Structures are given as structure tokens and as C-alpha cells.
């Protein structure tokens, strides 16, 4: 090496002028592109202002989404050796209080990794669906419930957040005022085209438009395509139950004699992580809110008042016999992936996701001609949370 270093002859050549010009032009173009991209982000994306104690700011500084994806990759892509599976899952179950007697597949060695064990199915008879107006959509712990007062939900005692920020609203953008809490965060609407789904713009919607002027017409349409009569009759009864009086409703205006309620259920790591329909209802659209992936443990909820508004979530909006109905699975650091069985196009916790605080909206209007949405019965499996 020393010899080569000393004895190799150095020859200098002039760089062609064209190449030099091309290099300078490339550098210039790159600089312009970066500047424009930053400008675009500054105008469309608002970084939420995190309000909370120092622990919250430390957690906020962590790349939670990247960590969540890494966690998912480790637990979903790499299989455990067969000899380790049983002791590992038993230790996990002991640590997080899982009931192994309830699971459908009791052969622990058949779960290749923690991801598959986490998304385990239960035996069909272990959770009877009670005959009630509203049943629990998931196993878990009731964190809070009550009335929505002036568009605000109480997350934990004394801490409220805005329904507009949680579910989105027509105007799309929220104004951040200096010194104001995060409840008024940011939402700019991104409408996407997804296969056969039609896009619906805005949050205020007319039931006339969704149900049609006369529900009977919808039945006639189905008859013309030749569906089985008995199925039709059953579906018509179901539809009758879900039909509400013709009126224009929105998320904030309820019909006379009604009011808005909310309920928050927390799923701990040992719980069964699939969720089911809490009643007979029709899902008309979903809004996928891009966001952070903070832990949603009760401890964190107390420290960070606007946690549920900040985190990535899928708002399923629709109607039931009493009017507006919505169900919102909210992701967390360990479970950033939300799966909806009737929406295969939905992908959450992606690297290339939308800017924080924005959402995509997809209509399920074409899922069923009769219901103008995706009909669900109480207890139907809707989807679940996966690791990462």
C-alpha cells in the first residue's frame, strides 16, 4: 500500500464543462424542491402543541411510530422456535393475566409468534351476546362514560376534549390560538379514492340522501337483482329497525328527545384484542386520522389530556335506531395496527402516512344497496388491534 501510494503517478484531467453545469443545475433544483416542500408542509401541517408534565415531553421526543413499527416487525415477522413457544406464551399470559382456557386454539405451539398469539380468537360460546340496547364491543376496562356536553367529551375526571377534534368536522381546519390547549388541533381533509367506494365530503350529512326519499324504493332495487325473498324479508325488518325519521342530522345536532353519549373502554395487553359490533347499526363511512402513537394506559391518559385526539385512530361513523352512532378504535404504541374486517384497503401505522392531524375519508355507501352502508349486528366481529 505504501509503495502504491508513493509510486502511482497522478494524472489530472479537466472535467467536461457540460458535466459541471449539470451538477450545478442539479444542486439548484434540489434546493428549490426542498424549499418548496418545506413551504408546503408549513402551510398544510400544524404540529400539535403537547401540553403536559415533563414525562409527556420526554415521551413525545421519542420516535413512537417508528418504534411501534419495529415492535410489530419483531413480533410479526420473526417466528419463535417451537420449543420456546409454550413457556413464552404461558409466561406472557401469567404476566398480563390472559385466560388461556377461553382461546379457540389451545395448542400454544401452533402460534408462530407473539403477533399471532396476541390476535388470538376465542371459543364461540365463551362470550354470549346479551339482549340489550348496547353491549360492550371489546374485553377491557371501562375508563369513563357519560353525556357529551357542548361538544366536549370527558376523558378522565375533569378533563375534556372536543368532539370536533376527535371525529373531525366539516370545515376541516382548526385554528390554533396561542396558549390554547391541543383540543383545537388541526385537521385538513384529504379525500382518497379507494376502489369501489364513493367519496363523501364533509361531516354534516342528510339522512334523506343516505337512505333515499323512500326506503321501499331501495327494497325494490334489490328485488330486481333477484335476491332470495326470505333473506329480503329478514333484511327489511332489520332495515326498518335502523331507519330513522327523515330529518337532517349532524354530529352536533341531535333529534328532539335525544342526546349524545360516549363510552371509553381500555384494552390492556393481556386482553382479547378483537372488537365486535356493540349493537345493530350501519357503518356509513370511516375516517382514518393520522396521528401519534402514545400509550393509552390510564396513567398516560391522566398525564396527557388530549391523548385520544392526538393518537392515530379510525372513526367508523354511521347510524342506529336512535340516530347517529360511531365507534372509534384508537391505536397505541404497541398496537398501532387497526384492522377492519370489511375494509381491506385500510392500512394504519404506515411509514408514508399522512401528516399528523389529517384524515382520509372513505364512504361505505356501496357496501350494501339496501342499507346504504355496511350493516352490522350486535356481536359481529368487526376487526381488531395488531402488534406494531
Amino acid at each position, binding site marked *: 500500500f505504501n509503495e502504491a501510494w508513493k509510486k502511482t503517478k497522478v494524472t489530472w484531467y479537466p472535467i467536461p464543462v457540460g458535466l459541471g453545469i449539470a451538477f450545478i443545475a442539479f444542486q439548484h433544483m434540489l434546493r428549490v424542491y426542498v424549499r418548496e416542500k418545506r413551504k408546503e408542509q408549513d402551510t398544510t401541517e400544524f404540529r400539535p402543541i403537547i401540553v403536559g408534565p415533563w414525562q409527556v415531553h420526554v415521551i413525545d421526543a421519542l420516535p413512537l411510530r417508528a418504534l411501534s413499527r419495529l415492535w410489530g416487525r419483531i413480533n410479526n415477522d420473526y417466528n419463535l422456535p417451537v420449543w420456546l413457544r409454550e413457556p413464552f406464551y404461558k409466561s406472557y399470559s401469567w404476566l398480563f393475566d390472559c385466560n388461556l382456557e377461553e382461546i379457540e386454539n389451545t395448542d400454544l405451539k401452533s402460534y408462530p409468534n407473539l403477533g399471532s398469539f396476541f390476535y388470538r380468537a376465542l371459543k364461540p360460546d365463551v362470550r354470549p351476546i346479551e339482549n340489550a340496547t348496547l353491549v360492550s*364491543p371489546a*374485553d377491557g376496562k371501562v375508563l369513563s362514560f357519560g353525556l357529551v356536553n357542548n361538544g366536549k367529551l370527558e376523558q378522565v375526571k375533569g378533563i375534556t376534549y372536543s368532539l370536533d377534534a376527535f371525529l373531525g368536522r366539516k370545515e376541516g381546519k382548526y385554528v390554533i390560538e396561542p396558549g390554547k390547549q391541543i383540543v383545537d388541533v388541526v385537521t385538513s381533509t384529504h379525500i382518497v379514492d379507494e376502489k369501489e367506494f364513493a367519496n363523501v365530503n364533509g361531516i354534516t350529512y342528510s339522512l334523506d340522501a343516505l337512505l333515499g326519499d323512500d326506503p321501499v324504493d331501495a327494497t325494490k332495487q334489490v328485488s330486481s337483482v333477484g335476491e332470495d325473498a326470505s333473506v329480503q324479508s329478514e333484511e327489511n325488518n332489520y332495515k326498518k329497525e335502523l331507519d330513522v325519521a327523515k330529518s337532517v342530522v349532524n354530529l352536533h345536532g341531535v333529534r328532539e328527545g335525544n342526546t349524545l353519549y*360516549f363510552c371509553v373502554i381500555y384494552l390492556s395487553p393481556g386482553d382479547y384484542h378483537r372488537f365486535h359490533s356493540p349493537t345493530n347499526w350501519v357503518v356509513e363511512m370511516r375516517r382514518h386520522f393520522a396521528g401519534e402513537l402514545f400509550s393509552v394506559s390510564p396513567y398516560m391518559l391522566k398525564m396527557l389530556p388530549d391523548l385520544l385526539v392526538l393518537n392515530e385512530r379510525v372513526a367508523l361513523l354511521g347510524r342506529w335506531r336512535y340516530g*347517529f352512532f360511531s365507534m372509534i378504535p384508537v391505536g397505541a404504541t404497541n398496537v398501532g395496527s387497526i384492522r377492519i374486517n370489511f375494509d381491506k384497503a385500510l392500512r394504519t401505522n404506515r411509514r408514508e402516512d399522512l401528516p399528523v392531524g389529517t384524515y382520509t375519508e372513505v364512504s361505505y355507501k356501496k357496501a350494501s344497496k339496501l342499507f346504504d352502508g355496511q350493516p352490522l349486528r350486535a356481536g359481529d366481529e368487526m376487526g381488531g388491534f395488531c402488534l406494531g
Partner: protein
Amino acid sequence: STVVLVFEAPIDFKFCMKPGQKIKYGQKIGEV
């Protein structure tokens, strides 16, 4: 993870559970 329900119901709707209570899916949480 968390599941939140927001819904419209008659004024006489009553929740039949307590904050902090453990619950299983399919169990009654409210009745009109």
C-alpha cells in the same frame, strides 16, 4: 388500545356499569 363509542340515544338511556369496571365483549353496557 382503546375503543370509544359516541352515539345519539334517548334522554332516558342508562349506562349499566361503573368506571374502572372490567367488562367482556357482549356484556350489557346500556339500556333505554
